[in-house]
């Protein structure tokens, strides 16, 4: 293996997917290229296996998938669905692994495999579903940091895919990026003029993806087996792992053929099972309905009708499912575009995004060739969530004071943006103001996430109704700044936005975890 100095430093993009992950680097002229893993594959399964015979080795990728059938208790898949969930823990050999640490293992594998290809990954952008909230975005960045990556940004998956499309194909007009991946579904609508992209809105569903379709096939298998033998097909974790893989294969077959014939071997006996595309489509119809609603909601948010969409870009492996494409054609009146590899375009776009981020933040560090290659690309993203604060206005109907969430920065506001609103103190002699920054669309405080809380000390002896100016701004790097100012006294609190709730990790923790991961061998 070449030493670090002789390796080419690379600006990279990573698609950290629910089922597969991959890494791309920008070449000398700013074109992204997928870097194959050490097994020579362009996609790495997002699967982890803790080797029981060699506790110092953690297997990630295809090897982990193969081992999973033998010992599912020591294997982990679909960790992305648990990103940001503080209660999620996998206990292996008396050690708890969080979703962030497990994701870091996948990222470490990608990074090290890249090293085998003679690249030294320097700055990286990781893609996330558009609907990921701040907690999940931060958790993703933490995973990158633990894996030893310098994460310079986060990009929404459909935006990354569209970036790659627009730099490789001629695209004009209102474009809908339809990203149906292994575990999540995102829709992004944008206005594209050559290499200039203005995001209009994004919508996402975190529990809609390939693995949900697999589950439906597994349900069919289990039901058919039960109907024939009056017995359960699956009686152990090992068997579940095996049939989950089988269900995934059947799903892929059904995208190519009208039926899939298989023999299944259960404890009560074996049987031949034929699953037709029709059966599959019937089973997944609730999920397809959900996709339909989300498309309509996205169009409503963009204030567009289906007829006003000029192009649909398909992204994600599950977009290959025929009924998905048929529904789109029926709704929009034209066929969706499959011009590039749906599995790779997010990664490739993330690499472009990394180049754009570096060009903006540290242009001197960007090689001239790459800078030239990216100079025509312009991207305007939007705020993915609404941000607000908790206040206590008087209800006009009842005359009583109520506690509610008031949105300050609305979802889908183009970035960078800054919004200011004035609130008023509640009581006479109020000496303190509790500041809460929320994320969510509801006015009911029960349904919003409190992502930061602070206190602002106020001068004593003042009447009620003193104005407090609240300013939220959001920059192009998706960083938020909040400023609460008591107008009369000039006293203020600037909230340096840090996530102090679930999914949060303190710098010291990050360092410790990164240190630990350095000692772990990932293969």
């Amino acid at each position: 293996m070449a030493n670090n100095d002789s390796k080419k430093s690379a600006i990279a993009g990573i698609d950290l997917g629910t089922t597969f992950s991959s890494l791309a680097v920008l070449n000398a002229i700013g074109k992204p290229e997928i870097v194959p893993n050490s097994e020579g594959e362009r996609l790495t399964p997002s699967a982890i296996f803790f080797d029981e015979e060699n506790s110092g080795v953690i297997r990630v990728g295809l090897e982990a998938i193969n081992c999973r059938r033998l010992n599912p208790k020591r294997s982990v898949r679909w960790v992305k669905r648990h990103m940001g969930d503080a209660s999620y823990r996998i206990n292996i050999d008396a050690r708890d692994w969080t979703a962030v640490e497990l994701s870091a293992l996948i990222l470490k594998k990608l990074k090290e495999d890249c090293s085998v290809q003679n690249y030294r990954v320097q700055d990286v952008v990781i893609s996330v579903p558009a609907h990921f909230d701040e907690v999940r975005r931060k958790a993703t960045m933490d995973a990158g940091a633990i894996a030893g990556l310098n994460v310079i940004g986060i990009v929404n998956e459909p935006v990354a895919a569209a970036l790659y499309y627009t730099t490789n194909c001629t695209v004009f007009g209102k474009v809908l990026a339809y990203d149906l991946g292994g575990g999540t579904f995102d829709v992004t609508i944008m206005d594209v003029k050559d290499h200039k992209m203005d995001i209009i809105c994004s919508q996402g569903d975190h529990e809609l993806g390939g693995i949900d379709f697999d589950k439906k096939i597994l349900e069919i298998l289990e039901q058919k087996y039960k109907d024939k033998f009056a017995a359960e097909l699956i009686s152990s974790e090992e068997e579940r792992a095996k049939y989950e893989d089988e269900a995934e294969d059947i799903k892929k077959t059904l995208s190519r053929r009208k039926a899939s014939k298989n023999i299944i071997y259960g404890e009560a006996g074996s049987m031949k099972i034929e699953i037709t595309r029709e059966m599959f489509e019937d089973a997944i119809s609730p999920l397809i309905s959900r996709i339909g609603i989300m498309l309509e909601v996205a169009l409503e948010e963009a204030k567009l009708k289906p007829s006003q969409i000029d192009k649909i870009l398909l992204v994600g492996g599950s977009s290959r499912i025929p009924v998905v494409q048929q529904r789109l054609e029926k709704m929009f009146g034209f066929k969706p575009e499959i011009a590039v590899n749906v599995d790779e375009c997010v990664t490739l776009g993330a690499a472009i995004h990394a180049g754009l981020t570096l060009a903006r933040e540290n242009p001197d560090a960007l090689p001239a060739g790459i800078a030239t290659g990216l100079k025509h690309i312009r991207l305007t993203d939007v705020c993915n969530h609404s941000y607000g604060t908790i206040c206590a206005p008087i209800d006009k109907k009842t005359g009583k004071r109520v506690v509610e969430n008031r949105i300050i920065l609305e979802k889908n506001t183009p970035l960078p943006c800054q919004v200011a609103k004035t609130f008023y103190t509640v009581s006479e002699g109020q000496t303190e103001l509790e500041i809460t920054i929320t994320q969510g669309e509801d006015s009911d405080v029960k349904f919003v996430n409190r992502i930061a809380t602070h206190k602002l000390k106020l001068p004593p002896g003042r009447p009620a109704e003193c104005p407090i100016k609240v300013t939220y701004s959001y920059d192009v790097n998706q960083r938020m700044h909040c400023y609460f100012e008591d107008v009369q006294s000039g006293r203020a609190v600037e909230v340096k936005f840090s996530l102090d709730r679930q999914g949060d990790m303190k710098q010291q923790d990050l360092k410790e975890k990164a240190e630990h991961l350095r000692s772990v061998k990932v293969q």
Partner: protein
Amino acid sequence: MQVEGFEQLKSWIWGKLKGTGLFEHHRPENQLDCSVSPAAENHQQKQKDGFVVKIKGSIRAPKDRRHTVAQIVITDVTDGISKAKPAHSSLERWQMNDSSVFCYSTELGRLPKAVTKLADWITVAKINADWLTLPRRGKRDLLLVVSILAGKSGEKIASTYCNFIYENSALGYVDLQENIEHAKILAITLAFAVAIADNDLADCELELIKSWAQTNIAAFNESNRSKRRLEKALNRTVSLLNQGRQIDIPSVCSEIVRIAVQEQRRDILQLCMYVAKATGTVTEGKFNTLSDIAERLEIDKGQFFAMTERFLPPDICQVKDIGLLVGITSDMTKDQARERLNKQYRKWSSRVTNFDPEIRRQAASMLKYIAKARREYIE
């Protein structure tokens, strides 16, 4: 400016009518009379009910000869002075300090002489009836007291009173309070109706109802006797229900609608919802009873739906009609149903990442129901 508290005022009236106490301290030259006559005023083409208050007689000016203030309070003495109750006002401007007791106040200006004699009736106030909330509805005997105060010190320099009869068409605050308490009793009846919707009263449901009664019904805290009576009534109700006695939901609801405002009706429905989910499952029977109660309490469908959304997590509702859970009603067109579902989807999809696992679970269930409803009603 100082104003008298109602208790002081009552004591003054009491003393005055008995011909003892305060009245004797007044100087003879401060002989003042007042009169009340009805006044009707056209306001935005609506006849507004009210009274004109006039005074006549002599007033001794305050020592500083500065300005004076006339203050008017009204007391309902229909049930005798010992049971007198003040008129209240919903307008902050006409409320006595720290209370809702009606207290009208107006500047009289500087009195021209040391003893000013008003030979003719002088109007000092026009009081709109809608400024007042009397204790009860119907024919009321009201005592109106006019006090002249020194503007600076607030010292009373003259006062007078008169009685008048007024036909009050609005519900009084005592009526309202009684209605509120009565509605609470009826709320318990409805809560029992929900609890026995499946012909079985669970212990946790009974406990919840009793606990609500103890917290919310004033009589529970009045005396041990009242408390015992209420407990006995509750136990008797349970016994009757166990014997198969039915609750006449339409009549109970109709009475509630008659006596309770919308806000209290919503509180009653909320209690019913808590009872419905007390066992951890809201059966179809209970859900339908809730829906029936909501309709009879004249709580609109949107409000009912918002409440079910807030208080009844969808994963505990065993409801076959998905439309009920997602807010689709039979009178909606396909487009309206679509609009409704999209709105619901937008709302719940933003909640799936909530920090609270309970809300996340609720959101995940709702998204499934919304998709199911879409297939049922739209596709």
